[in-house]
């Protein structure tokens, strides 16, 4: 059942009725039915606004955006969660940003380093403690290439000068020390954290090797930005680019490192996967070093082929031939996967509520499997994300910005989708409602989903979720209607 625009609008009105008048008025601005002909979203949807008091939202905080998303995947830095111990501990290693190396020797992603603020640190300030921690860390992990200070809420509240500590410590240990002002209370969602982290990379890291020219660059140097290597995503993207004849000189920031980031200025093209979290640095790279950027989409064979051709078009005929060769070579493999899974997934309806780039980028992969996306929404998108979403999504599909748990559950009750793709906060609610669910923030402990290799895993995962026999066993036996056979027997 596909809804047309009027039906979607009607459903939105029904759901909004429950709210108090003022809340309903505010929330109405965040919900709409899709119209693929729209170019600009600022007239029809409000995004990146503070969530209303009293509703349950799925958003994170600036610290989550900076430490968890942007800085977390960088493998050779020590991220100090500066503040009380909880923020670091509960966000540790949750996003499964894969890296290569030896933990505690030259990679540090799976560690929780915190300054463990106590009452006395809040009263007397934590700068001295921080400086001591940095010295100590440098002694413990001499192969680390840098240290970042990810400030938690109290740091901003008591006004500690972490920038001064960073400057002093950089001189002392001779490594990059980056203060990241990502106090959780700043901004309306994790989106500001991405911005803050991008700015810290710009101000403290990017230019560090500008006076060195030892890097031998080639005309085929590219960098991948906005790919966090969740379950190995960046690797399955990287192999395709390398097969095309391009040289990936930097990964921002999945499996990335400080020296890579400092050499990014040699790239000839910046390939941007997650626009939301890395457009800031991409714009800066273009302005300062003249590196053009382009967005690409490596979900599902149709979009991969499109993107590979677009990327190749920026280079010479050799690269273009290679791209065609890769597409021709992988297409039979993809056709086999589609032939296997499409009959099992054809016509299934999907509801998405994720963040970053997924509500629009993944649509192509679902369509390759014969599924349709009937609703998509972002936790923390801005209007430019919705500009990009309208033309990807089918006419009349629901769009919901920062959906509250009530709205999401009501939509699901009405639409009865065959699959929901969202985060861990929603997962068990929908499991209990008896609806197949994939946790699409970190691929539900699976992945990679990017690239041709990823699509095979994506298709398998969707099949094993939707066609899992457990969904018919949700009702307790005594609540089920007696089957006809049993009635006949009685």
């Amino acid at each position, binding site marked *: 059942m596909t809804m047309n625009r009027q039906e979607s609008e009607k459903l939105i009105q029904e759901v909004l009725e429950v709210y108090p008048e003022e809340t309903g008025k505010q929330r109405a601005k965040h919900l709409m039915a899709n119209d693929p002909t729209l170019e*600009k979203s*600022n007239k029809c949807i409000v995004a*990146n606004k503070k969530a209303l008091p009293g509703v349950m939202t799925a958003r994170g905080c600036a610290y989550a955006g900076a430490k968890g998303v942007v800085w977390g995947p960088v493998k050779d830095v020590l991220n100090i969660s500066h503040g009380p111990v909880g923020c670091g501990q509960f966000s540790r290693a949750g996003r499964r940003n894969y890296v290569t190396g030896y933990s505690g020797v030259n990679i540090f992603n799976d560690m929780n380093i915190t300054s463990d603020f106590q009452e006395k640190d809040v009263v007397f300030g934590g700068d001295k403690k921080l400086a001591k921690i940095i010295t100590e860390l440098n002694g413990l992990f001499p192969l680390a290439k840098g240290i970042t200070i990810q400030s938690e809420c109290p740091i901003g509240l008591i006004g500690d000068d972490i920038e001064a500590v960073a400057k002093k410590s950089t001189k002392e240990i001779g490594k990059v020390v980056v203060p990241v002002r990502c106090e959780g209370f700043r901004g309306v969602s994790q989106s500001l954290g991405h911005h803050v982290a991008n700015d810290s990379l710009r101000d403290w890291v990017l230019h560090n090797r500008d006076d060195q020219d030892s890097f031998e660059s080639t005309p085929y140097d590219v960098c991948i930005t906005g790919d966090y290597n969740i379950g190995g995503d960046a690797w399955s993207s990287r192999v395709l680019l390398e097969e095309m004849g391009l040289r990936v000189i930097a990964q921002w920031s999945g499996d990335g490192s400080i020296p890579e980031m400092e050499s990014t200025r040699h790239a000839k093209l910046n390939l941007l996967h997650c626009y939301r979290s890395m457009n*800031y640095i991409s*714009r800066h790279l*273009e*302005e300062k070093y*003249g590196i053009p950027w*382009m967005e690409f989409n490596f979900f599902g064979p149709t979009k991969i082929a499109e993107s590979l051709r677009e990327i190749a078009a920026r280079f010479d005929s050799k690269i273009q031939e290679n791209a065609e060769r890769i597409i021709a070579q992988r297409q039979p493999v993809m056709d086999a996967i589609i032939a296997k899974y499409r009959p099992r997934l054809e016509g299934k309806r999907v509801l998405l509520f994720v963040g970053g780039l997924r509500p629009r980028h993944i649509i192509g992969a679902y369509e390759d499997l014969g599924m349709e996306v009937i609703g998509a929404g972002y936790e923390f998108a*801005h*209007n*430019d994300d919705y*500009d990009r979403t309208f033309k990807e999504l089918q006419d009349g599909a629901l769009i919901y910005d920062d959906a509250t748990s009530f709205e999401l559950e009501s939509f699901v009750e009405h639409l009865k989708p065959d699959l929901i793709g969202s985060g861990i906060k929603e997962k068990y609610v929908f499991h209990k409602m008896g609806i197949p669910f994939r946790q699409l923030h970190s691929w539900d402990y699976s992945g990679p989903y990017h690239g041709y290799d990823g699509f095979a895993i994506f298709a398998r995962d969707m099949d094993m979720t939707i066609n899992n026999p457990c969904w018919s066993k949700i009702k307790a036996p005594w609540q089920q209607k007696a089957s006809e056979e049993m009635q006949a027997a009685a």
Partner: protein
Amino acid sequence: MPNVMLRNNAAGQLVFYVTKKDHEETVVSLEFSGPGAWGGEIELSDGSRYYLEPFDQPPRLPLTVRVKRL
């Protein structure tokens, strides 16, 4: 006096981007665009107008500039 970034998009149009607001609009008219002077009054696709102190020569884009809202 917002800080904006001016850049050319893939289609060759001049794009006006307000970093703080994530607000991106194409420029529909630029008062002076020739050699000798570049800038002046800018009109965007959403109808809003800004003033950019003219440059002597067309600058290398992208470029972050301060503009005045009219």
